[in-house]
């Protein structure tokens, strides 16, 4: 019985996490669904913490190998996910950068994306 009891707390956290997720994410507009998914993607890169733990407790070649691959996967997930999400989000602007900024007298983004 005790082992089940020990599990109650993590399960509670899991269920509340899902509910918070529903609450927060249902407010995200369709415009941002791609960055949302890519951002959520970076969040599940948190398994890298698990990879660090299995590396720390590794005492045989198999464990070292598993930990290494998990570290590579997790790091690619975290770093790549956040960078690409940031890249996408910086493109979302309220006003067109070059053409309109001058006409509207609004402070334009100085590093207006060249070309197009």
């Amino acid at each position, binding site marked *: 019985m005790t082992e089940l009891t020990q599990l109650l707390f993590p399960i509670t956290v899991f269920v509340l996490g899902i509910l918070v997720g529903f609450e927060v994410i249902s407010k*995200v507009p369709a415009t*941002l669904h791609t*960055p949302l998914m*890519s951002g959520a993607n970076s969040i599940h890169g948190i398994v890298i913490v698990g*990879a660090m733990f299995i590396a720390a407790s590794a005492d045989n070649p198999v464990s070292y190998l598993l*930990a290494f691959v998990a570290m590579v996967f997790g*790091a690619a997930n975290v770093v790549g996910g956040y960078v690409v999400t940031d*890249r*996408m989000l910086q493109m979302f602007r309220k006003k067109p950068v070059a053409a309109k900024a001058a006409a509207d007298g609004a402070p334009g983004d100085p590093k207006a994306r060249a070309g197009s």
Partner: protein
Amino acid sequence: MTYDNVYPFVYLAWLAGAACFVLGLHNMNSPATARNGNRLSAAGMTVAIGATAFLLIVQGVSPAAWAVIIVGFLIGGAAGLATARSVPMTAMPQLVSVFNAVGGGAAALVAIDDFLNHGSHGGANVSTTLFVVLGVVIGSVTFSGSLIASGKLQGLISGKPIVFPGSRLVTLAMGLIAVLGTLGLVFTATGTVVLDPLVANLVLLAIIGSALVFGVTMVLPIGGADMPVVISLLNAFTGTAAAMAGFAIDNPVLIIAGALVGASGGILTKLMADAMNRSILNIMIGGFGGGEHAAGAVAGGAGGSVRAIGADDAAIQLAYAQLVIIVPGYGLAVAQAQHACRELGELLEERGVTVEYAIHPVAGRMPGHMNVLLAEANVPYPMLKEMDEVNPDFDRADVALVVGANDVTNPAARRPGNPVSGMPILDVDHAKSIIVIKRSMGRGYAGIDNELYANPKTGMLFADAKEGLAQLTSAVKAL
């Protein structure tokens, strides 16, 4: 400093990281705050990883383990960074799929290692074993399934549904092996079944193998047009796998983060399936989504007469309109025409025309894909309208300009009895005049003719999306 002294603080740091994830996602509710939200989430991640590293320093870890952690991080991080910087926005769905794969893969590996070190000796408790094995199963399915999805999106594997004789049976059998194996291992943990550790490891191997095959045979029969649903679903799987890994190693931040991602993927899956008016089960079993029908599509096959229109005539309609609604679809992305589209839109605005973009939820290959492509082309986001918001506007639109969208504009969806019946569509036919830029009369993914093209109000400008928009732009300039 001892491990026991430090652990509570590390735990609090994990909690802080999880709180940053929630707040970061919360900030995603508006494009104005989203970028800061993402950075907050990244900061939370840094705190969580840093705190873990600190805990390991206090605990004392072998140099070999540090080498694995640091070298692994550098290699993975560099690969992720390089890809993230260079990937074109049209390829975002593939990239997200690859990230799903590596995330699910990492979760599976963590769970596998935990089982090898604790579970196979029969000493582990039942509940932990259950979550560990679930982590292995879900992680492996996500890994192989996401790689296949990514291959399909990249064009390495045919985007059409791939069904071989007995493929459903294979999927079913693999699922059964995974379930039975999981039950076997759980019963071993209860002591009902006694397994030699070696046998237990072999059972785990069988579970991994069947889960990997299951992922492949699950995604192969799904057509290209259903990819937004598949990516969302696999995203939910990855989150769940991360949470299971969290149960395995008893770590709160993994559980919370996994739950958040699971919820996000779940919501998006539902939204996408609703936007296509299909149940998730129906999509997973496979069906249209680019099957035999689409392959047989040829030019000139539409019922009713179709009126072709020249760029000059179309330009006159556009230039003297008050409200023009542009309806972009995946054809626009394929032709890389988002910049040409923005150019035409800006030109019209300079002439005093109000321009809006009507974006169907499944335009593109993943949820919200079209918005990102247009944002990249510098279209301000307030001009990008969602379906429910823009549909009433079609009634007062002078011209609806359809570029590379097909099924989502087909009025046949309002009637029962055809493949698109019941699918929510953009009310393009309510506009006073309709211009469709299209290469030929080819059909969309649903494999049926679009009644919109036979509408007397519709003029067809036969051209590649990019070329057609360029023609229109120069014709408007010449006026």
